[in-house]
């Protein structure tokens, strides 16, 4: 589960060492926007060293690399991939060609390092108008792709509108991204909430993301992790209901009934599907700390 993906600046030893204790399902070690150009090398070496020497408990480790229009992306991969991050997050992905180039590079590196080919996953950041247009084909372009992350800051710059807390300007982008990801069979992830001291705003934004079908949300502040995890976790009520759905199906099966109802409502395929996902999520979260 990736209810939360916490961004950590790649050039900060303290943050990286403590990253896996902040409760997020995934941590994103950032070599891109959180690192100034004169420290790209320092961050890369620190992230590489951390992957080599540290363990991250049950946290998934994602490395956000610099975009393919910079001179950094290739060395980022060359240095970091041998130490097997779980996922690489390429930025400003606008078309399938970018993915092709990345996959080719990853294939070569995995081969060279004796890693299982395809074991390093991709989670592209969709933050350009063109990227949003091509979202479905990007999402379907490689088996390595596990999801799409919406990058609202850069996207709104590309769309030439202002980024607001209410988020009306990204309504379309959110809907489109969810649709593209689901159509391709991968997970959609929402952009981070950027106001630091606004817990109500965070909750509203996150609940909106959940209601739109996102699987989780990127987070830039450790203090946001708990709440976002909570919102993306199935509630005890939802789990109870899901269990009841399957109990009702079993019951109906025993009695040879064709049509199944629960609490006066017909149980049709979408309800069963939702119940299944809830129970899967609950199972995945057993033994994971919130």
């Amino acid at each position, binding site marked *: 589960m990736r209810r939360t993906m916490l961004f950590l600046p790649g050039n900060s*030893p303290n943050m990286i060492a403590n990253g896996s204790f902040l409760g997020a399902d995934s941590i994103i070690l950032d070599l891109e926007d959180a690192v100034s150009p004169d420290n790209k090398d320092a961050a890369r070496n620190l992230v590489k*060293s951390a992957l080599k020497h540290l363990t991250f408990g049950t946290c998934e480790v994602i490395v956000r690399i610099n975009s393919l229009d910079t001179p*950094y992306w290739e060395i980022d991969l060359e240095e970091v991939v041998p130490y097997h991050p779980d996922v690489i997050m390429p930025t400003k992905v606008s078309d399938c060609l970018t993915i092709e180039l990345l996959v080719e590079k990853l294939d070569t590196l995995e081969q060279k390092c004796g890693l299982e080919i395809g074991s390093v996953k991709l989670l592209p950041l969709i933050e350009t108008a063109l990227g949003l247009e091509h979202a479905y084909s990007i999402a379907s372009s490689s088996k390595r792709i596990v999801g799409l992350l919406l990058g609202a800051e850069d996207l709104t710059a590309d769309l030439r509108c202002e980024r607001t807390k209410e988020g009306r300007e990204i309504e379309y982008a959110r809907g489109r991204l969810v649709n593209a990801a689901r159509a391709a069979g991968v997970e959609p992830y929402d952009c981070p909430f950027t106001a630091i001291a606004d817990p109500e705003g965070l909750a509203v934004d996150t609940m909106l993301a959940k209601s739109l079908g996102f699987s989780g949300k990127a987070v830039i502040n450790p203090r946001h992790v708990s709440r976002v995890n909570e919102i993306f976790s199935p509630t005890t009520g939802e789990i109870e209901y899901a269990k009841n759905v399957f109990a009702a199906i079993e019951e109906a099966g025993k009695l040879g009934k064709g049509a199944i109802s629960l609490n006066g409502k017909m149980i049709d395929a979408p309800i069963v599907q939702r119940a299944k996902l809830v129970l899967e999520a609950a199972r995945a979260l057993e033994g994971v700390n919130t």
Partner: protein
Amino acid sequence: MMIVKVGIAGTLESSDIMIRVYPGGNGLQIEVESLVYRQFGKHITKLIETTARELGVENAIIEARDFGALDCTICARLETALKRAGKEAAV
């Protein structure tokens, strides 16, 4: 790797280590100042020496000011400082 200029990496923050590398012709001269010198001084000096040699550096002056950095941070900062001080331009 040949050390041809000054290379600096790291910060003075807690859990970090600031490393300065200077060109020097007399083998590896390593000087360590550390918050945890009593406990890890010898170990840190040895680690810097070993890591420098692994990167092919045999001659350099290395000064380290440590604020309780873990081995992984020391290795990373040293590698960065050495490459910045080395012949090829660091990317």
